[in-house]
């Protein structure tokens, strides 16, 4: 399998006044195409920071993050945004839907950003993905007319509609009850099985991690090799 994401000795530090706070401390990791990977760990362990680094919404203080063969440190802000648009999908803990748009419009939004998808094609893809997440009956509803689980399904549909290579989900079940959370993870797994999309999701819920192909456990910003599946060795390209 080819690694679609690699992290090599990645360090992320935040500065709070004169104090430097390390959030990620020398993480080295390779994630293969099509993996359903869970990043687990307690609050403050660096899960979200790691996802932000992989998702190109944040940059590493030291080390290298490579996404789909591109070293993110060398990319301009515009190029990073393009990378996010074309290669990545995001699912947030609080769903982060656009409140004034209905289900269809929320899912359609990334396709509009792509700019080169015709209206007919957009409609086809949006309706198909909404059907796949089981929300066809709510296609004209606004987010505030949906339950938490339904909103997260919309977020999943939005993340997948552009056929990204990687979907990043930051605690996708944290704001849902356990039954709904389970269904959401199952849906993500179903999408992962049916498409060649890599899913990387963070969670602190042990029940959720059982669906993962691999679990990376973080503790104090480092991979906790003793309590989790050890990280795969980094494939060094010539």
């Amino acid at each position: 399998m080819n690694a679609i994401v690699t992290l090599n000795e990645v360090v992320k530090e935040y500065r709070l006044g004169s104090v430097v706070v390390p959030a990620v401390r020398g993480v080295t990791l390779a994630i293969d195409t099509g993996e359903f990977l869970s990043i687990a760990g307690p609050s403050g362990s660096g899960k979200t920071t790691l996802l932000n680094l992989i998702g190109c919404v944040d940059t590493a203080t030291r080390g290298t993050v490579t996404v789909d063969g591109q070293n993110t440190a060398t990319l301009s802000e515009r190029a990073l945004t393009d990378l996010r648009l074309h290669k990545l999908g995001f699912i947030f803990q609080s769903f982060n839907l656009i409140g004034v748009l209905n289900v269809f419009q929320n899912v359609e939004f990334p396709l509009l950003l792509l700019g080169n998808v015709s209206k007919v094609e957009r409609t086809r893809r949006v309706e198909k993905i909404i059907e796949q997440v089981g929300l066809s009956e709510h296609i004209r509803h606004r987010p505030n007319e949906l339950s938490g689980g339904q909103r997260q399904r919309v977020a999943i549909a939005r993340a997948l509609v552009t056929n990204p290579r990687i979907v990043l989900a930051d605690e996708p079940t944290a704001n849902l009850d356990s039954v709904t959370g389970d269904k959401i993870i199952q849906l993500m797994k179903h999408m992962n099985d049916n498409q060649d999309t890599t899913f990387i999701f963070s969670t602190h819920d042990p029940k959720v991690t059982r669906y993962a192909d691999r679990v990376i456990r973080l503790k104090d910003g480092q991979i906790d090799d003793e309590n989790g599946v050890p990280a795969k060795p980094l494939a060094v390209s010539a």
Partner: protein
Amino acid sequence: MGQLILIATQNLLQHKRRNLLLGIAIALVTAMLITLLGLSAGIETTMLRSATTLSSGHINVAGFYKVTSGSAAPLVTGHKELERLVRENTPHLDYTISRMRGWGKVISDTTSFQAGINGVDIDTERGLKNVLRLAPQKDYKPGGTEEIRGNLDNLREPNTVMLFVEQAKRLEVDVGDQLTISAPTPRGVSNTLSVSVVAIAKDVGFMSGWGIFVPNQTVRDIYQLTEDTTGAIMVYLDDIAKLEEVENHLRQLVAKAGHRLMEKDSNPFWMKFERVGNEDWIGQKIDITNWEDEISFMSWTIQSFDALTGILVMILMILVAVGIMNTLWIAIRERTREIGTMRAIGAQKGMISKMFLLEAAVLGFASTAIGALAAVLIAYSINTSGVVIPSEAFQLFTMSETLHVLVRPQTVVFSVGLLTMFTTLSALYPAYRAAKLKPITAIHHVG
């Protein structure tokens, strides 16, 4: 773009109260701007119509005749041939008239005053007949009746005069009374002539106090001038926008016909006496001027009014700008996570800026359109209800007893465009700040 407009509109609708208040403020400023510009245009139109009828053509072919190098008389000799030339070769011509010009004392049994003497051939004076309204007797005579006495057409008769109400009041005369006109000639003597009052017209602003109207022949008689002499050939165009073009054409035409032309001097003819008197030439020179030269104080008045309007609207626009910026700051604060989400899923900075600019533009356009509609309705109401101007001083200034608001389509388009643009520009900085938000900061914003 459609999605962005949709987001902008929906966001505006979501915060109805806040945006409604701001929208009302923008609409009020628009309505005020259009109404004031309409008022200015209305006054300008009324003043222009009155002034070009009373004392100037759109273009004047006039001049000075000097018997000696030290004296100058505002006369055009051989005017019939010149008028024919002008009438036959002027593009956009509506009509021409010929008016004698003079200055003298108007004397009644009780008092006298100095005034300009305008000579007219009443049969050719289309504009004068349209603008002037004869006054009922009670307007100028204590204890007078509603009867309108006299007739403008009686100015066909020799030795007759038409006065305005204020002049008749001062002279204490009625239609049918006799007056004496005493006018100094270039030879240094004063000629006098008795004239009969044949009409008394309602005042047409402050300019009506400046002159009386008599037949052309009466002026010639006073100054002992020949039939072929006039003061000015006044040219009226069917399209005043062509003024400059036609004026230049006339200058070339008159010069080509062999007349000597005076250098262009944008002053009224009565301000040129001293300068022309000091010039070393004798005989006839033609002076071609336009209405703005002859009544330049009016342009100044209108410009002052427009400037005041501009200052007032500018102040209001600054207040609107502060309102827009404040509203957008609040919106950005409320929607920071939304901005972060959009940036995370691939929206470039420019798109975020565009979204907030569009929001301001949609609010601006909708509000200014409503404001413009309100202004048109206000103008219609004022014009149809005949709102009387309460101040006599303002009546003199506007040359009208009632308010007239002229809202031109281009004024509406200009005002809506200007205020929408201004509203949008006010959003530039907040929009720029929104776009500059780092996705990571924005996504995790709490508030």
